């Protein structure tokens, strides 16, 4: 069974090698930060990052070394670049950022007084400036990357995996937190059903978004966790001595832990998990997945949350481009449209002397949705200035919001680094800056992979569902369990899930998650056979290189086109006029969500994740299809990578074999999956949203109803008052 793993592991190793860190330090005893590799980059002129790591009482009391292995962009000017480190809110020192050539490890000793048992936080602030370029764009070239494998806390005392909390210190294996479900003997649905609750509890307890689950009949190697099912039925002698229920013990290998689930049947397994969650796992869950997460605001309609709640701390900014980002997690059944705006209440101030082109840009999901000019050259103070962000820019689930303050001054044009005055701030953004979420239209509309990835919709919420595996092999099961784990983390709760072999049957009102590794089920429900991904959409959404001819042509055009400034006025006007209808058409179409049909799992795809309504319309099926079990597993791993998972949207996501690039396709048409709130206010907002999307119907209805009314008035009015109908 492990054979099927091999190509995948090789592939991942290759992938990892491309960013392979130089292992300057022996990281054997490092306790890693819990945040995934993606979060280990600090970019721009002034950036902060928050990390956490876990210590037990003895480790906290002994103190240790904070090890930060990093490399920075060549363009960073070494004289002024600096990293400041804070541990649990107290300054712990810092260092100059000066490692453009390769990874360099800095250690900062942290004494026991600054540490505490449980989760400790590290706040890094990187200030860096460009060597030669003072333009705003150049600030995007500034970055400092931490090497997640070599970064962490080195305690004076080694880690021993003997309790649940110690699992929080488990290191990553090739940038993934590896959990292997060890099922001795033949794999069947019953065994998976027994292990599923324990696995979900474990993932929630770890609160890491880079977990990869594999399934095998023997433990894995390298850092990670083996979740061993020791049922008496199979009679695994290796763990006969383990206590009944859920327990932790070190594995044979350093850095690897074993969690043993010793139970008979599902009910005992469930009871065991419950006992662990209520007992030894409770604190970890509370401070982890159930606690506040930095950089994220989970909003509900009518709430007002400040940046402080997203972990932002007020700081003055003396660079050119201030970037502040956070994530806004919208409800899963949120219907984006124009019925309201999400208000940003800006608490900030600018300093005198800014160039008149200074402005604040708000980007939502990588699109600029609002600009607000800082017109006052004498400096300006904003006490809750309202900036309205269009709701349509948001989507259910996680949304990336960035506040970009462009703050050029006249001196930037000369660009003399020595003339820069860092003591003179240009901008301050207060942590009281808040967002206010209006009453939202709530209507679950599927397919929507964004809602799935962000909120595990429609599976979250306590409603039971089925996970179907079309065959009982390790690859298929691993794909299923990987997805399930990630969804549980998105839902922040374990599911009431039943794992079954086969395909979902029509007539059941239970939602289903379907893993099919034989390329058969994919045809189910695929509407437009032979419809291939729209090349334009592919090119624009794919993060891989655009290889098709249309994109090439476009690239050629833009490369050879004369700059706007070179054109004559008439040529420019003609260009504008030629562009206008197209642009207007796009605008009318809400910036071109060209509808595409559900795509069958086709050539060139590793896996296809798509969502559809069951043929009888009673339930929602989300299907992961692949041609082979190992491809299913590799595809699932790719999908749950934080950067990929975060950007899932539309009705279908395809992981391509070439370069593992991920393409999201909009849904051909959506169906209503749930209307939980039937209040008149919500119905009105839903109507407004729906009519905005279908404005032909809106216009016809208005014209029809009021035309009828007007005609009746026209017949009635002459007969009222002084009669003029005679």
């Amino acid at each position, binding site marked *: 069974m492990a054979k099927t793993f091999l190509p995948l592991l090789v592939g991942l190793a290759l992938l990892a090698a491309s960013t392979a860190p130089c292992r300057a330090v022996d990281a054997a005893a490092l306790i890693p930060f819990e945040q995934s590799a993606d979060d280990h980059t600090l970019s721009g002129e002034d950036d902060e990052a928050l990390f956490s790591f876990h210590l037990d009482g003895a480790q906290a009391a002994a103190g240790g070394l904070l090890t930060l292995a990093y490399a920075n962009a060549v363009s960073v000017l070494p004289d002024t670049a600096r990293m400041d480190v804070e541990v649990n809110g107290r300054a712990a020192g810092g260092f100059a950022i000066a490692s453009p050539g390769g990874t360099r490890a800095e250690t900062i000793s942290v004494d026991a007084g600054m540490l505490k048992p449980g989760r400790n936080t590290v706040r890094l602030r990187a200030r860096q400036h460009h060597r030669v370029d003072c333009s705003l764009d150049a600030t995007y070239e500034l970055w400092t990357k931490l090497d997640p494998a070599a970064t962490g806390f080195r305690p004076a005392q080694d880690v021993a995996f003997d309790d649940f909390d110690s699992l929080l210190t488990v290191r990553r294996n090739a940038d993934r937190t590896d959990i292997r479900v060890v099922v001795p003997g033949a794999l069947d649905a019953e065994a998976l059903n027994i292990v599923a609750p324990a696995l979900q509890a474990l993932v929630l307890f770890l609160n890491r978004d880079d977990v990869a689950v594999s399934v095998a009949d023997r433990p894995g190697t390298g850092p990670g966790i083996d979740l061993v099912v020791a049922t008496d039925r199979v009679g695994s002698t290796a763990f006969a001595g383990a206590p009944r229920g859920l327990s932790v013990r070190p594995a044979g290998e350093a850095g690897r832990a074993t969690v043993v689930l010793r139970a008979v049947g599902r009910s005992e397994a469930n009871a065991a998990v419950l006992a662990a969650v209520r007992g030894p796992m409770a604190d970890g869950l509370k401070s982890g997945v159930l606690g506040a997460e930095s950089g994220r605001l989970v909003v509900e309609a009518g709430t007002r949350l400040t940046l402080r709640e997203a972990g932002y701390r007020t700081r003055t900014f003396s660079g050119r481009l201030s970037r502040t980002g956070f994530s806004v997690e919208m409800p899963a059944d949120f219907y984006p449209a*124009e019925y309201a705006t999400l208000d940003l209440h800006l608490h900030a101030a600018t300093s005198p002397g800014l160039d008149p082109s200074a402005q604040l840009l708000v980007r939502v999901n990588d699109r600029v949705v609002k600009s607000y000019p800082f017109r006052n050259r004498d400096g300006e103070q904003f006490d809750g200035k309202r900036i309205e962000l269009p709701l349509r820019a948001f989507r259910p689930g996680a949304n990336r919001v960035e506040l970009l303050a462009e703050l050029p001054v006249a001196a930037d044009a000369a660009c003399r680094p020595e003339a820069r005055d860092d003591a003179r701030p240009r901008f301050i953004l207060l942590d009281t800056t808040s967002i206010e979420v209006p009453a939202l239209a709530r209507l679950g509309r599927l397919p929507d992979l964004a809602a799935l990835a962000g909120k595990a919709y429609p599976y979250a919420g306590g409603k039971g569902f089925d996970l179907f595996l079309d065959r009982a092999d390790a690859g298929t099961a691993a794909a299923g369990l990987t997805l399930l784990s990630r969804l549980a983390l998105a839902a922040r709760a374990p599911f009431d899930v039943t794992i079954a072999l086969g395909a979902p049957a029509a007539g059941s009102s239970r939602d289903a998650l379907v893993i099919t590794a034989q390329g058969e089920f994919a045809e189910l429900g695929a509407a437009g056979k032979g419809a291939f991904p729209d090349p334009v959409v592919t090119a624009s959404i794919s993060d891989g290189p655009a290889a098709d001819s249309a994109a090439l042509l476009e690239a050629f055009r833009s490369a050879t086109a004369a700059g706007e400034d070179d054109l004559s006025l008439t040529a420019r006007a003609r260009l504008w006029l030629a562009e206008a209808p197209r642009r207007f058409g796009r605008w009318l179409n809400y910036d071109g969500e060209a509808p595409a049909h559900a795509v069958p799992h086709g050539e060139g795809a590793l896996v296809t994740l798509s969502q559809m309504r069951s043929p009888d319309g009673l339930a929602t099926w989300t299907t992961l299809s692949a041609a082979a079990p190992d491809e299913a597993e590799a595809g699932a791993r790719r999908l749950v990578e934080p950067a990929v998972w975060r950007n899932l949207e539309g009705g279908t996501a395809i992981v391509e074999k070439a370069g593992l690039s991920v393409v999201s396709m909009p849904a051909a048409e959506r169906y209503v999956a749930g209307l939980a709130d039937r209040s008149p206010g919500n119905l009105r907002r839903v109507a407004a949203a729906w009519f905005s999307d279908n404005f032909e119907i809106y216009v016809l209805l208005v014209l029809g109803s009021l035309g009828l009314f007007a005609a009746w008035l026209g017949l009635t009015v002459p007969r009222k008052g002084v009669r003029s109908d005679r």
Partner: protein
Amino acid sequence: MQMGFQMHMTCAKWLAVPAGMLGLFLLWLPISLQAQLVLSFAVLGILFLAMTRPESPVFRLVTFVFAAILAMRYAFWRTTETLPSVHEPLNFIPGLMLYLAEMYCLAMLAVSFFMLADPVKRKTPAPGAAADLPTVDVFIPSYNEDPELLAGTLAAAKSMLYPRDKLAVYLLDDGGTEAKRNHRDPRIAIAAIRRHGQLKALCAALGVHYHARGQNDHAKAGNLNEGLKVSKGELVVVFDADHAPVREFLRETVGFFREDKKLFLVQTPHYFLNPDPLEKNLRTFARMPSENEMFYSILQRGLDKWNASFFCGSAAVLRRSALAAANGFSGQSITEDCETALSLHARGWHSIYVDKPLIAGLQPETFVSFIGQRARWCQGMLQILLLNRPFLAKGLTLAQRVCYAGINLFWLFPLSRLAFTFSPLLYIFFSLEIYQANIAGFAAYAVTYLVGSFAMQNYLYGRVRWPWVSELYEYVQSVLLFGSILSVLRNPRKPTFNVTAKGQTLDRSMLSPLARPYFLIFFLLLAAALYSGYRLMTEPVATELLLIVAGWNLVNLSLAGAALGVVAERRELRRNQRLPVRRHALMALAGTLHTVVIQDASFGGVSVEFLENAPAIDPENPVEATIELRRGGRSVSFEVVSRSRRGGGEGIYGFAYRERTPQTFIAIADLMYADQSVLQERLTRRQVRCGFFRGTARFALWSVTETLRALGYAAGLVRESVVPSAADAPIVVKENSASIPGRAAALPPILAGAHVHG
């Protein structure tokens, strides 16, 4: 058949009313800009289609409803998306004021749609047999008008076609009351005594009752009530001192009273022989429909539909029994006419409006007296609004409440107009964001609404109002009426009756004494326009909002520029307004009888065209002649003296009356007011639509040329030569040899305007 139709209508109602409610629900949905834009275009399309058949009530109401869609969408958007945050009071407070000004305009739009739903055109009923005709008393209240003006009106009133024994004319002279004659100031007392004597003699010569009461209480209303006491006719007709009726006046109005026993009022339009200051100074009188035509030929007809046409103080017939039931004319406010109608409507009486010009009068010529008149109307209407609360008044139908509240509320326009004028400055100078919109939103909501409302203006009023003229009238009044409104709001009982000065002349062109604020505002707006241009050029992130606001300020600047033309008064030498009569007559001149056509006539003289053998007349040596007119077998003659040779046509000469006896005035009245169609024809000739683009171009031209002219006046660049002018013939009342001097150009221009009554 009728039953079947009734049933169909009931069924249709059950369908149409829910459809209307569905439509309303849909309109109040917060939909996307895209949806709004498509909706706006679709609605505008249907609007323009429906406008093609104005005579069909169904098409008319479709037009209204679809224009209302745009307005409601605009109002919804304006309310929900464009208001500044309450937490930014610097933006919010002026933003709210502008918002309220706009909402006021939308409310007035709604009221006007209601008023104009189905204007009524009345058919005159036959007056009936002479023996059955009711007795009629004609009241001509006067305060300080010239005897000459009164003589013409009295003569015309006396000449109305009606059985002699059933018509009595009363001159109710408040300038010669006992109180005035016994005034402490001997100059006032002497003037009053002289006036009393002269008018008494004139009345006696014309066969008119003269009455002057003891005290000047309650101004015009008190005077009219005094008239009710000294007379007893069944019907009462009121003419202002300068409102001379045509002969058919009673024939066109009295018949209605026979048909409806609950009728208390038949109102007719006020037709003016002379231009108002705007018409005079912008030289539009000959071509452009007058300001009041919008009210008289459209609004009053609309009000008539809802039994809410109201008394306008003159040119109306009222039923004495109705007035008696309401204790006469009401005098609480300074617009006694509207107040009287309100109180009678509230008592269940009916009113009718006849859309035919049946009187010819004068309107204030100078800007000062124009503003004085408007201030009185404005204050009086607001007094009624505050003191009588027409919307809550008992006894009125809902439709009447809406109409009265609408016509009273209309006079708050200065507040909204000034808000529109000044709010752009807040953004241009201080960057206050009081109207939060981007250009796409503005285009989808505001521009489409504006297009719709301009189209509606043209549809409803195009015949009587050219584009931008309403705005100009509103603006010139707003600047000075603002204070009047504040004073009424502070103390609703304070304003007193001002008599509007009429028949004034101006011997040279000059700026009105009230011109200063108009110049200040103009320069302020000009500075804003320049500064906004500067900002647009220099600001790299010049917002869309700035573009909108700068454009808006430019419109205001054009208005302010054209308004400078209104307050830069052109000279007015003409004392007597001519009316083109084209009457055939015979003229005996130096023993020869000539066949002539009287081209036009005034109270000073006539223009005569000799059809053949024009005599040689030397302007330096005036010759005397006698003109004889014939009508209905009766002959009327009067003596004239030659004055000038009139330019233009061949053989047209100007003659003045040699002397003006009561008989001359009867002849003049016959000459001028024998035929209603003369007035109608003059009115109709000007009622020509002027398209939006032509009107805008004309307006843009005005705003340039009139600004330059006004600046020229301000800089003292007026070059005018003195024009010699002969005085009018004196009025000779033969019976007691009283002689009242005619008016002459030597009289200084009266700029002080109104005198306080009483």
